[in-house]
């Protein structure tokens, strides 16, 4: 057979380094500098949320009537609020709660979404039809409505809020997973796998899941801040976690009342919130780039 090896790429040695799919993804992700910075920032936030409460000299219930409305200073890095509480401590606790709700609700959402989406997509037919009509209803409703009702019913603890948000926001994920299952089901390489003699379970585990992680991860990275916003939104209108437990939404609502005289009381929580959400968004953006098959290396 005629074959010419001249134009083989730059690889000259036969044993080139083993490369995994993950390393390729990471290589593409790294190209998006905002995403990398944001990822480090999120890791930093998680560390702060865990370590912060342990090292802070203040507690979120500690009132100090000798130090009301203080602007940032050496003792109180971000100042104090109308009860003389240390704003930085409040924000750290708010951060902790936001992260718990964000990741927790995200987990609930992914779990329900994958379950329903995969069942609908894989079984198809009448099951798919009924499940998807249900998803349609959930999707057509702003999740905020049901959320509000659920919180009224379940109560206002961190866990119930997390649950309520998770229970009301999985519709998009279910649609996405179903779509993924349907596309992957008719992809040529899945047909090829069938032709090679792979069983259904093998097909799902070895080919469908590795190639569906991308869109799910991307969706999740956008849904975590979504859950955080929902939590804060509920707090903002007075339906979030019970005071005195701080929440960013509650801090913003409270701070905005004093905005004219003490803007730091609202700007710090709002700023921290905005940065956190943007970080997640940028990571999501980076993930989307990394998983985009059109991206070349």
């Amino acid at each position: 057979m005629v074959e010419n090896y001249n134009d083989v790429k730059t690889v000259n040695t036969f044993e080139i380094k083993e490369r995994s799919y993950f390393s390729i993804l990471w290589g593409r992700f790294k190209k998006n500098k905002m995403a990398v910075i944001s990822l480090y920032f999120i890791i930093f936030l998680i560390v702060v949320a865990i370590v912060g409460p342990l090292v802070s000299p203040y507690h979120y219930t500690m009132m100090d009537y000798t130090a009301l409305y203080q602007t940032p200073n050496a003792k109180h890095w971000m100042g104090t609020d109308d009860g003389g509480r240390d704003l930085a401590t409040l924000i750290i606790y708010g951060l902790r709660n936001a992260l718990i709700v964000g990741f927790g609700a995200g987990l609930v959402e992914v779990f329900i979404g994958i379950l329903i989406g995969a069942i609908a997509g894989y079984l198809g037919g009448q099951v798919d039809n009924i499940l998807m009509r249900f998803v349609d209803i959930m999707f057509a409703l702003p999740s905020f409505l049901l959320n509000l009702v659920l919180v009224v019913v379940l109560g206002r603890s961190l866990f119930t809020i997390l649950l309520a948000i998770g229970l009301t926001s999985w519709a998009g994920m279910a649609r996405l997973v179903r779509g993924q299952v349907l596309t992957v089901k008719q992809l040529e390489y899945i047909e090829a796998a069938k032709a090679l003699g792979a069983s259904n379970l093998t097909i799902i585990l070895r080919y469908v899941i590795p190639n569906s992680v991308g869109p799910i991860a991307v969706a999740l990275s956008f849904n975590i801040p979504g859950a955080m916003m929902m939590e804060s939104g509920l707090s903002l209108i007075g339906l979030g976690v019970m005071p005195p437990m701080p929440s960013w939404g509650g801090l913003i609502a409270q701070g905005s009342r004093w905005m004219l005289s003490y803007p730091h009381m609202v700007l710090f929580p709002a700023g921290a919130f905005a940065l956190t959400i943007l970080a997640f968004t940028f990571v999501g953006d980076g993930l989307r780039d990394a998983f985009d098959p059109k991206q070349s290396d």
Partner: protein
Amino acid sequence: MLKYVVKRIGFIIIALFFVSLITFILIKSAPGNYVETERLLSQNVTDVTVPPEVKAAWEKAYHLDKPAWQQFLIFIANAARFEFGPSFQYPSTTIEKIIMRTFPISFRLAVMAIGLALIIGIPLGIIAAFKKDTIVDRIAILLSMIGTSLPNYVMAVFLIYILALELHLVPSIGWGEPKHYVLPVLSLAIGPIGSITRYMRASLVETLNREYIRVAWAKGGGFREVVLKHALRNSLIPLITVVGPQLAYLTVGTVFVENLFNIPGLGKFYATAAIYRDYPMVMGTTVFFATIVMLTNFIVDIIYGILDPRIRKRSMMEG
């Protein structure tokens, strides 16, 4: 087309039935669902004992003397006629009257925000698409990303600080004059501006790469003929599928902004009702909001079907 419309309306009715049912069941299972405590609580009076005959009268007024399934049927039947009865907080008026009084305020905010978003978002998206991969484009993408990801109440905080407190351009509080609309509408609009810009850019970039656009250039068209007549048309038609849901979500999304700016819209009343466990009000408003959202999406889909010949002609052939 007719078949499709009937089908969609059927879906909306079924969906609304389920929404009502779920809300009803949830609220029935809520803790402390007793008319006297709830009604007193919602009016901020707690230390009064209610005589039995008054209690019975109240229960009758809210149909609480009947079994649950009857209550539900009564609710559904009344809701279909847009009658929700009195609320706990405001026994002297009806919920539909409150909705009629307050919803237009929320709706006006939402429509103004969407209008503003279209006026700013469409040209911004077009510019970004034309300056693709330049610094202008990158800034537009970054701004729209920030705009779409931040919630409107955080936007509101920053806008108040910059426009009201630092620059003294507009008042930060108050309600009743046109200038009081500026900050709420801006905070509501920034999200939709972001998504419309992003959508327009992506859609136009894609359309401009289409073969039929190259054909139009090859036919000797200029900017007006090719971009405005061929490309923009095909990008604007699907835009309404983006704007429709935005409008629907915004009508509900005003809740936060109304709370922050103390605007007497339906969202504000809705939130207060939830805090004070004014169950009839929560029930009625939830179903009302759900109806509005579904109707908006329905109308958008119909308009889309009319504008796109492929859908219009195909559905005509099938139906």
